[in-house]
């Protein structure tokens, strides 16, 4: 009969990652690099919105993009057409990035010539919300075809985001998406959320979003 001993741990599974994310934010502050974590379900428009964001900001700030994907490099090739610096990160089957994977990605990309680093997280509304990447700000995209009830179904995601972009407003006439209800649902879970309706197709709302982002970058990098 082997003699087992019990070792108490009593710690959240996320505690290590939370500490690591804090460390990473400190490192980024020192280097003067702003990291944005962009999340959404697949197809909500992260890559398309990023292309428009790069267009709006490329003369004002040096941008680097990290495209996280389970196993493809389609998005990185799209972004590279914008002329912005971009790398592809493969998560090897995982549905999110943690702070350590983000740090490795930043190292691989190189941040000496980057002021605004943007992480396009894996398309998913559950897991990325639980793992702090070390980003300075979190943004998510909810697209009109997904429906206005999503804040009720994925409360954690909506509660950790500083900005919620409501994308594809060009197709509002074809869906029964209720913008006022959606705002209300988001704000009950997260009263501080900034909500910006946009269309990455027509460019509507992109100025407001890009303006917000630039202001946050300037505050952080001062």
């Amino acid at each position, binding site marked *: 009969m082997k003699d*087992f001993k019990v*070792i108490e*741990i009593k710690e959240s599974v996320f505690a290590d*990652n939370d500490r690591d994310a804090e460390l990473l934010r400190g490192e980024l502050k020192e280097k003067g690099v702003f990291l944005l974590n962009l999340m959404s379900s697949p197809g909500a428009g992260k890559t398309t919105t990023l292309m428009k964001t790069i267009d709006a900001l490329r003369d004002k700030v040096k941008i680097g993009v990290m495209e996280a994907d389970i196993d493809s490099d389609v998005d990185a090739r799209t972004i590279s057409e914008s002329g912005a610096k971009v790398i592809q990160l493969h998560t090897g089957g995982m549905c999110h990035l*943690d702070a350590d994977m983000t740090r490795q990605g930043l190292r691989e990309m190189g941040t000496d010539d980057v002021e605004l680093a943007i992480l396009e997280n894996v398309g998913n509304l*559950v897991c990325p919300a639980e793992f702090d990447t070390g980003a300075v700000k979190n943004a998510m995209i909810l697209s009109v075809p997904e429906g206005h009830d999503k804040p009720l179904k994925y409360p954690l995601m909506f509660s950790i985001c500083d900005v919620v972009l409501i994308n594809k407003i060009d197709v509002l006439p074809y869906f029964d998406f209720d913008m006022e209800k959606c705002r209300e649902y988001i704000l*009950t879970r997260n009263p501080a959320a900034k909500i910006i309706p946009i269309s990455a197709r027509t460019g509507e709302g992109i100025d407001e979003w890009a303006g917000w982002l630039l202001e946050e970058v300037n505050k952080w990098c001062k």
Partner: protein
Amino acid sequence: MHELGIVFHIIKKIEEVAAENAVTSVNSVTLEIGEVSTIVDTYLQDCWKWAAAKSDYVKDAKLLIETIPAVTMCDSCKRTYETVKYGKTCPYCGSEDTYLVTGNEVSIKEIEAI
């Protein structure tokens, strides 16, 4: 696959604890999982089997899961109620000014090791 990432974090933490405590082999790992944590126990077990096999410390360890009931507190009437039954709305006073007290946990409670 949300559970896989969580399993990797658990194994990393246990390897650290094992090294600190001069443990050679882990017999079991006990987790506390909240009722509304969105973790699916069966996925977690499957991911555990797959990932644990690659770690010397935990390759033979059983994963034991203790479920923590979800309880919500109402800020208006200061009573608590079962989250799974009533959600965000207080069944006593109808207020939505409520917050989750327990039920969101994903914690490692303890390990049994030699």
